C-alpha cells in the first residue's frame, strides 16, 4: 500500500468495522479541529476515547480523558493520531503494547510518517495517513455534500439514513468514484515535499 491514495472501499471498510476510537492529541477546547472531529464521531455512534496527559481524569462530552493509550481500560479498535508526524512512531509503539492490538492506526490530515506506518503494518494493523475520519465519514455518507463539498462519489442508489436523529446519513451507501480533485492532491504533495525540504535545511 503506497498511502498516497486510498480506495473508498478501504476507508469505508475501516469506518464500518471499528467501534472504539482513541484520539491521541485530543483538545478539550471546543474551537479546535480535534474537538470537532471527536464530537462529530461521538455523535455518529463511535465509542470515543480522549487521550491527553494534561487533561487526564477530566470528563469531556461525557467521556473520561486518559493520559496515555495504555491507561485505557477498554479495547481500542482504532488509534487516531492528532499529533505532529514526529510523534507518530512512539504512539504506534505504545499502541502495539495493547492487548488485543488495535485494528487500525489512523494519522490525521497533514500527518504522515512512513516509518510509523511500516511498524503498524508489520504487526498486521491497517494504516491510514493524512486523512480526517470526520471528513471521510462525511464524504462516504454524503453528509459533507450539504456543505457543497465535492464528495468524489456518485451513486444511483438512495442514500441511507443512519437511524440516529435527523440530518444524519449512514456509511452504508453504494457509490462509485465521482469528480477527482487532482490539483488539490498535487498541492498537498507539494506542501509535504516543501515541509520535508524545509526540515532538511534545519529550519
Amino acid at each position, binding site marked *: 500500500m503506497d498511502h498516497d491514495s486510498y480506495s473508498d472501499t478501504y476507508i469505508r471498510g475501516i469506518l464500518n468495522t471499528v467501534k472504539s476510537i482513541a484520539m491521541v492529541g485530543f483538545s478539550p477546547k471546543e474551537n479546535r479541529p480535534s474537538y470537532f472531529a471527536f464530537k462529530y464521531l461521538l455523535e455518529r455512534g463511535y465509542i470515543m476515547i480522549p487521550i491527553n496527559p494534561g487533561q487526564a481524569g477530566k470528563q469531556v462530552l461525557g467521556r473520561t480523558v486518559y493520559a496515555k493509550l495504555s491507561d485505557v481500560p477498554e479495547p481500542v479498535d482504532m488509534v487516531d493520531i492528532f499529533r505532529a508526524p514526529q510523534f507518530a512512531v512512539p504512539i504506534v509503539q505504545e499502541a502495539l503494547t495493547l492487548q488485543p492490538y488495535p485494528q487500525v492506526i489512523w494519522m490525521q490530515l497533514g500527518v504522515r510518517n512512513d516509518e510509523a506506518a511500516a511498524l503498524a503494518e508489520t504487526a498486521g494493523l491497517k494504516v491510514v495517513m493524512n486523512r480526517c475520519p470526520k471528513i471521510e465519514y462525511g464524504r462516504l455518507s454524503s*453528509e459533507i455534500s450539504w456543505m*457543497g*463539498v465535492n464528495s468524489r462519489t456518485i451513486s444511483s442508489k438512495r442514500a441511507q439514513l443512519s437511524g440516529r436523529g435527523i440530518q444524519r446519513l449512514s456509511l452504508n451507501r453504494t457509490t462509485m468514484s465521482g469528480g477527482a480533485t487532482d490539483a488539490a492532491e498535487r498541492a498537498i504533495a507539494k506542501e509535504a515535499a516543501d515541509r520535508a525540504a524545509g526540515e532538511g535545511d534545519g529550519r
Partner: protein
Amino acid sequence: MTERIPGFSTLAIHAGAQPDPTTGARATPIYQTTSFVFEDVDHAASLFGLQTFGNIYTRIGNPTNAVLEERVAALEGGTAGLAVASGHAAQVIVFHCLMRPGDEFVAAKKLYGGSINQFNHAFKNFGWNVVWADPDDVSSFERAVSPKTKAIFIESIANPGGVICDVEAIAKIARGAGVPLIVDNTLATPYLCKPIDYGADIVVHSLTKFLGGHGNSIGGLVVDAGTFNWSREGRYPMLSEPRPEYHGIVLHETFGNFAFAIACRVLSLRDMGPALSPFNAFLILTGIETLPLRMQRHCDNALSTAEWLAEHPKVAWVSYPGLDGDRYNSLAQKYCPSGAGSVFTFGLKGGYEAGIKLVSNVKLFSHLANIGDTRSLIIHPASTTHRQLSDAQKVQAGAGPDVVRLSIGLEDVEDIIGDLEDALATA
C-alpha cells in the same frame, strides 16, 4: 477491480445528486424552505458551531443548492463550491474573504463590462482597489503586483471580444507573488476549459449563462480548487486567524483544502446575504445535465456563423478565437480545443449606425443583454452593456462603436445565418 473514474458527461448528470434518502425521488427535489428543524439543542449547537455537516437556514445553505455546488465543483475539479444569487454576488463573496480596506488586486482589463464597473466603482467603496493589467501582455500582471496585492483576477475566455487569456502563464505570476489566481470561467464552462488544471486557485461563474443555459435563472458560483495555502504568510486573516464570529475557530486548519469555500459560506454569504433561490438552483441543475451536448452545438454553430460573417462584404472584421488566423487561435487550441465558445464580436463597416440598424432588423436573434441562452442573442455593446464605460475603456474592452456582439444559440445554423443575412441586407 480498479475504480472507474467517471467522464465529464457522467458527472454533469450525477455529481452531487442521488435519490432522496426518504422519498427515493430521483430528480433533485426543490427544498423550498427557509429553515430546517433541529434534533435538539445539542444538534443546533453543533450546526451553528460548524462542528457537524447539515442545514440550518437557506441563506447559509440548502440541499438543492448543495447539489448544484457539488456538481460544478466536480466538473471543475475543485474541492468544494458555493452557490450564490448571481455571478456578481460570487465576486463580492470571493473578494470579501480576501481583501481588507486598502488592499489591491490585479485584474485583466478585458473583462465583462459589469465586472469592470463592479471593480472600478462598487469595490472602491470597500477600499478594495483594482489595478488593471493587459491580458495580451502577460508581463503587465507581474508589473502590477505590489505588496498590497491579494489576488489576480482574469476571465478564461473574456466577454465580449473573444479574448483567450494565457491562464497558465498568469497562474505562474500569481504563484510567484504568493496570491491566489481567480478565473471567471463563465464563457468557457468546464466543458471547454478547466482553469484549475492550469493553476487557478478559485473559479467563479455566472450560472446564468451556459451552465444554466436556458435564459431562465440568475445565479453565481464559487469553486475552491483546494490548492492555495492560506496560512503560509498570514495574509488572509479570514482563513488563517481565529474568527470571533465562530468562537475562535481557524477555518483553514479546521477545514483544510476546502476552507475557502467554507469561509465564503460562513463568513461572507452568511453576513452579506446574497443567497440563491433553491428553485433557481433546480433549473440550473437541469440545464447542467445537458451542458456537454449544448456547449458543443453552441461552438459548432458559432464557428460556422463566424466563418460566414468573415466573408460578408459589410463586415470589417470578426473576432472569434476559433477562426484560423485569429490572434487568439493558438491560445484557443491550447485552452479550449473542443471549441472557442459561442460569444464573439464583429465589426460593421457602417459603424455605430449600422450596428443600431442590425439589432433592429433581426427577426430570430433576440436583442437583449445576456449571453449563453438556447436562443441566439445580439447586442450592440457600445449603446448598452458597455455604455457606462469611457470611450477609451470601451475600445479596451473590445466594445468600440462599430462592434456587435453575438451569442450563438442552438437553433439550426442555416436559420441563424439566414437571419443575419436578411438583417445585414438592409443594415
